[in-house]
């Protein structure tokens, strides 16, 4: 199952796109309660938001972004059937992409 969820809603003036990504966003400074060992840093570094193949936003982030990151954007003009996509890549080179069709 994809780690990404995308929801969109069209309004008169804009289209709201919300995304929720399942990711631990570990800082690397937290300890495992059971073993007392440091949990290695594991966080998303870049996120790309596209609309019909065009990059609308490139995001660079650190581990200051919350666990299971949430982002929302407003596209000025989008039609039903348009494709939006979210992709992310983390510091351990894992990545995921999801495409969503605006209803």
């Amino acid at each position, binding site marked *: 199952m994809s780690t990404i969820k995308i929801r969109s809603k069209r309004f008169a003036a*804009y289209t709201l796109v919300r995304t929720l990504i399942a990711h631990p966003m570990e800082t690397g400074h937290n300890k495992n309660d059971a073993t007392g060992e440091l949990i290695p840093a594991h966080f998303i570094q870049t996120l790309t938001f596209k609309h019909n193949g065009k990059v609308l936003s*490139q995001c*660079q982030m650190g581990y200051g972004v919350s666990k299971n990151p949430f982002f929302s954007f407003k*596209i000025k003009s989008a039609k039903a059937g348009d494709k939006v996509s979210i992709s992310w890549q983390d510091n351990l080179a894992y990545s995921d992409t999801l495409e969503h069709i605006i209803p």
Partner: protein
Amino acid sequence: MLTTRRRFVKKMLALSGYALGLGFSKISLANWIADNFSRQTFSQSITQLFPNQELQKSDRISLKLPRTAENGSVVPITISSTIPDVDTIYILSEKNPVPLIAQFSIDPDLETYLGARFKMQETCDVIVVLKAKDQYYQTRQKVKVTLGGCGG
């Protein structure tokens, strides 16, 4: 036009160089800049991100932030602005070990609007910086944190 093989080769070389250049510029956009996200103080971070830039205070940026965050590990923020031609949004938290939370490029097809959730170590100011036409605008708001979020 006289077309010799030499000319053809030269053209192809020029074109491939151009394509390479394009490719690289795309990569650099997506590149994660480690220095921006290193452990540093807030003032170091500002110097690193905006060298020799004046961050003008602006009341045209509106922030939706809680006054008190019960749990510092999830602080919701909504940013919107009436400043035209904004191309980058930066979110910083003054007392976090890594002050820069995230930076977003904003295409003209997007409204100057952003929603996100981030972590706060302790009570401090949250600073949002917008870049528009090579000018920098900032606004800040204090958030009281009851339970620090960087350990969670």
